[in-house]
């Protein structure tokens, strides 16, 4: 029997989760799916594979969209090696945003972005959560504390005394080479 090429995945965290059909080559980006494929026979894989993560079907759909688009990219295996489409070992390269990735992330609202990060972390899709984290890091790079709060929609939970104490520690986290440069 030919190996199963389409996997059916359903989020059972809440009742009534959508059943997603995902190409095997795409699903193999997930460390969790790789483990399941190792443990299950092909006959088991014909059934729906349950996953349980606190994200909406909309968020999960975006994850599978990225996986499907990136199905031919090298995949990280559970032993840490990186494998090409023919399962041969390839050298790991630092991740960079492709034009498609840029459009993909730029089009997300913050809710979808955080859902992708949560789902990618649960499904152990290393390149996706690394790109997602990099995307968030780029959003806050060079911003002030107040701007970061606004971008990430975070309200400060420091009391005024705590905040003042941390602000007074500013000299601590400043490196002396900067002082010398300014002088």
């Amino acid at each position, binding site marked *: 029997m030919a190996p199963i090429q389409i996997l059916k995945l359903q989020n059972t965290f809440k009742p009534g989760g959508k059943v997603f059909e995902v190409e095997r080559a795409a699903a193999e980006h997930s460390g969790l799916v790789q483990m399941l494929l190792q443990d299950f026979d092909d006959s088991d894989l014909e059934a729906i594979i349950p996953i349980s993560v*606190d*994200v909406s079907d909309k968020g999960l759909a975006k994850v599978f969209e990225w996986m499907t688009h990136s199905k031919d990219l090298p995949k990280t295996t559970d032993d840490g090696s990186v494998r090409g489409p023919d399962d041969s070992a390839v050298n790991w390269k630092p991740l960079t945003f492709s034009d498609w990735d840029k459009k993909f992330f730029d089009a997300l609202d*913050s*809710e979808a972005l*955080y*859902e992708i*990060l*949560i789902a990618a*972390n649960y499904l152990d899709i290393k390149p996706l*959560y*690394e790109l*997602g*984290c*990099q995307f*968030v*890091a780029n959003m*806050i*790079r*060079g*911003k*002030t*504390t107040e701007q*970061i*709060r606004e971008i*990430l*929609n*975070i*309200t*400060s*939970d*420091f009391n005024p005394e705590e*905040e003042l104490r*941390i*602000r007074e*520690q*500013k*000299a*601590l*986290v*400043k*490196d*002396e*080479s900067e*002082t*010398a*440069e300014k*002088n």
Partner: protein
Amino acid sequence: MPAFLHLPDEILLLIVRAVDPEDLRALRLVSRRLGGVAQIPLAKTCFERRRVLLQQDSLETLVEISRHPVFGPAVRILVVLMDHLRPDLGPDASRSRLSGDAAHESKSVEEEARQYSLLLIDQEALMETGLGTTYLAQAMAGLPNLESVVIDATEWPRWGPIVEPRAGPQYLRLFMSPYTIEFVQKALCAVVLAVATGKPSLAELDIAIGSEHGGGISPGMLPSSTRPALQYVRKRPISLSSLWLRFAAENWTFDPVNDELEMVLDFIMLFPKLQSLYIRFEGEIDRPELMNGLSQRLRLPNLRFLGLGELQCTERELISLLRGHKDTLEEVRLQGICFGGDQGGSWRSLLRTVRDEQLVPALTIEECSTVGGWVLYGFDKASDDGTPTTTTWYAERFRIGGTGFAWADVLDHVTEDNKHYPKLDLGQVYPI
């Protein structure tokens, strides 16, 4: 609807690790949770290698860091910057340059000069009263993971004229102003005393002043052990195991009145427990008396690693130095060592002696030479198509013993069936 703070810690950690140090500082204040997550990368980025100026505010900050539960333990390397103010380089010195400017600018120069003068008084008071030592000792005592103290000058002299980093001897002469020599001497004295009182378990002291600019220290910058402050160190030796000294060759005067080598040896002997010693001369030094003196007078009872860089010497002197430490030496690294003159000797002969007398288990040779050519080592390389092997010669770094080539193969030609071994032919000089 998930919010940013619903993300698991491992994701937040990946995000904060991807931002710049400046962003980490901003993130600390965003919220308690994000501040907590940012604290560890921040500690690693800003505190693992911490710089301090010998000025009161900088030293007070260091003491504060040493009391912080996360930042203090993060400090592993303390870089004590030798940047300092000099009386001849204050704003007054540049007044003539501004003489044609508007009157209000002149007033501002006056104000700057006044501030500079006050800072200079503070700087001198800090060094004269021993307060600098007290701060440093207090801070070092509170840094539980401090391993290494580096003495460096990234911008030297502070507030001085802009000098091209590689302006050569002219730049070095600036280093050699009497005020700077005295400042560095006092500063080193303060650091050594601070180590003795605050961190006697310190492993490494790296005196690398000016090395980034191709400079280095002069023997006159090393404090004499007869200084009252260092008498304490002599009585209670520091357990320092590693000392790196980078000298500017140009700054050695070889004045017969001052025995500069004695100054160096006197300083080294402040640390009798040394296991690693590295001495490098930035800019090759070709004074034969220097290595001759070192080979006869340097004796460290626990020396396991010896590194020498950019020196001209003879085979005999080098062998004498190695024989003097034969019982303890485990590794020797020679960089840019040149056997000069008629009595220079040969590398083949040196290696044979080292091998036969088992002077040191591992020896690294990097860009060493005799006058006129590099020391080379060769590899027989078998061709895939069965044609005769070819030998490729290299002059860069190679190691014999330890993880390097086997001593047994050194100087002996390899057999036909053993082609993958290196063919060392070190007696021959191959001009480049």
